[in-house]
């Protein structure tokens, strides 16, 4: 058990500045997910914690030790790789025992720990097999088993589920969460899948181009994204964006666009006032849109045309266009609309998001 501290962490390759001034405090027993598109520096950050990548500048502390110059074996970490990286010439048992053998554990202790881990992961019957005789899901379990037998201070996961098929991925995701609850070991988990990030992480770190964009609990990222990138990255389907002009009329602020005109709720008006007469980006989550009824204020509704209807059973996704702006609305499964027909939509004004056009920071 240990906390992990990253201070002004940087990684430069010859041409590329892969990780830029990353500062993170991962608390003891916490499950932190690094998420972002490929090339955002999340894996590099993880590999620096593992000691597989040299640190260009900055400092990493695991527990109370600065580990910058320690080789991986002395950092007391265990890592699960995307492609499993099982030792092909060894049995499952030997794969899991390897780390303990290297650390000169007594044979009986090794056996006990491997058995224990095998039971947790439900792979007791596979211990005599070689990796090539296992399915993808089983291999991933062995890879996790190899990590947990060591009882390390920190688990590092590098996209461990991305090689599995969709169904298995969901199943393993739940198992990993259960495993973390049971083992209570600090974990750093890298993924490009925002659903994995949201479901697994106690806290989520969103990265882009080597910079940390935002750190926060999943729902915090969802409801209060720090910038347009985080807003668009977290949530599925992604947030709708539209360029709007901010204008003052009838004693309030309005967000205007050729297709719609929406009144800014009073609570948001104060922060938007400096942008009066300027353009900003408006963000609306698909789930904050619904088909307008008499109960909705007229100033929070707008007309649109339906382009595609995607019935998912529990909900319907409407791909609509309002004044040239394409949007997705997530509506009740009972809604009956036809393609190419107009539909009037209403939005949850309290949950609108505004972003500076240039800096893209949330307003």
């Amino acid at each position, binding site marked *: 058990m240990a906390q992990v501290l990253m201070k002004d962490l940087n990684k430069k390759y010859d041409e590329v500045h892969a990780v830029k001034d990353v500062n993170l405090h991962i608390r003891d027993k916490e499950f932190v997910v690094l998420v972002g598109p490929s090339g955002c520096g999340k894996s590099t950050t993880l590999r620096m914690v593992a000691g597989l990548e040299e640190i260009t500048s900055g400092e990493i502390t695991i527990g109370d030790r600065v580990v910058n110059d320690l080789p*991986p*074996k002395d950092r007391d970490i265990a890592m699960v*790789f995307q492609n499993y990286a*099982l*030792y*092909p*010439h060894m049995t499952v048992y030997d794969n899991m025992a390897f780390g303990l053998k290297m650390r000169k554990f007594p044979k009986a202790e090794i056996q006990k720990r491997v058995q224990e881990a095998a039971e947790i992961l439900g792979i007791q019957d596979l211990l005599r097999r070689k990796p*090539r005789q296992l399915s993808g899901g089983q291999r991933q379990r062995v890879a996790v088993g190899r990590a947990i037998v*060591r009882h390390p201070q920190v688990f590092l996961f590098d996209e461990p589920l991305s090689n599995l098929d969709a169904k298995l991925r969901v199943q393993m995701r739940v198992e990993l969460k259960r495993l973390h609850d049971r083992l209570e070991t600090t974990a750093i988990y890298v993924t490009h899948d925002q659903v994995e990030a949201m479901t697994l992480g106690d806290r989520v770190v969103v990265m882009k181009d080597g910079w940390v964009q935002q750190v926060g609990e999943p729902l915090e990222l969802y409801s209060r994204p720090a910038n347009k990138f985080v807003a668009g990255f977290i949530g599925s389907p992604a947030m709708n964006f539209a360029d709007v002009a901010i204008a003052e009329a009838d004693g309030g602020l309005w967000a205007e666009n050729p297709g719609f005109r929406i009144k800014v709720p009073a609570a948001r008006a104060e922060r938007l006032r400096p942008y009066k007469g300027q353009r900003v980006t408006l963000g609306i989550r698909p789930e904050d849109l619904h088909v307008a009824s008499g109960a909705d204020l007229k100033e929070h509704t707008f007309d649109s045309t339906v382009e595609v209807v995607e019935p998912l059973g529990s909900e319907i996704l409407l791909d609509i266009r309002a004044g040239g702006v394409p949007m997705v609305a997530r509506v009740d499964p009972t809604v009956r609309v036809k393609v190419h027909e107009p539909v009037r939509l209403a939005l949850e004004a309290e949950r609108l998001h505004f972003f500076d056009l240039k800096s893209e920071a949330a307003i």
Partner: protein
Amino acid sequence: MGPARRRRRTFGLLACYAVIGLFVIFFLFPPYWMALTSFKTNQEIESLEGIPFIIQKGATLKHYQDLFTKTDFLLYFWNSVVVTVPVVVASMVISVLAAYALSRLGFAGAGVIGTAVFLVYLVPDSLLFIPLFKIIGTLGLLNTKWSLALVYPTLIVPFATWLLIGYFASIPRELDEAALVDGANHLQMLVQIFLPVAVPGLIAATIFAFTVSWSGFLYPMAFIFSSDQQVLTAGTVTSLIKGDVYHWGGLMAGALLACLPPVLLYVFLMDYYISGLTAGSTKA
């Protein structure tokens, strides 16, 4: 499968076998002729009426008898073994370490050095043996079989290293990283994880090293003049070609026996070579 497709498939198979058959004949003809000649009597070998491709006047083991009793063939054979074993071992140790360092340790200039190593291999033996003669002389190793044990690795290591660099590149890096995280140091990882996975590549390099050392002709010819130090290749030839008299029967018998160790080695190692040992390690 429709009849048309089946017919096409049958035709394709036949074509394959025809081509393979041609290759088999092409490659097996020389050893066949060699074997045949070694069992013919001198009379038949030299007879102008004889047909070269079959034995007409009875087979004989006389050439083999003479080889063992009238020449130092067994001594040459032993010398070849004594030279080749340490050469293969030393070359492989050096090549493996060099290839591992060049392909995995990622130090500055590794790529350039890797290419340079290969370029060294392109320098022909026939250019090297004169300066090497001088060096061997200075070291006091002229006319000893140990001169070969010293020189052969210089021929083998560059190519074997280059070959292994290529093979090592195909081993997923996560495998060594997993071992390093698991607590192994570089040497433990190399011996316990990396080399077992690299066996097919190691076998290819070993076969190459063995072949170079076993079949080398120029260097023993140049460096060794006494019969008791001579190795198989040069020894057989020098003792069975007297002036312009070629003892074809004996030469062919000697050549055939000299072929046996490499053939046995190939047969023995091929099974390992072909079975893909990395299967199951990673997703791909």
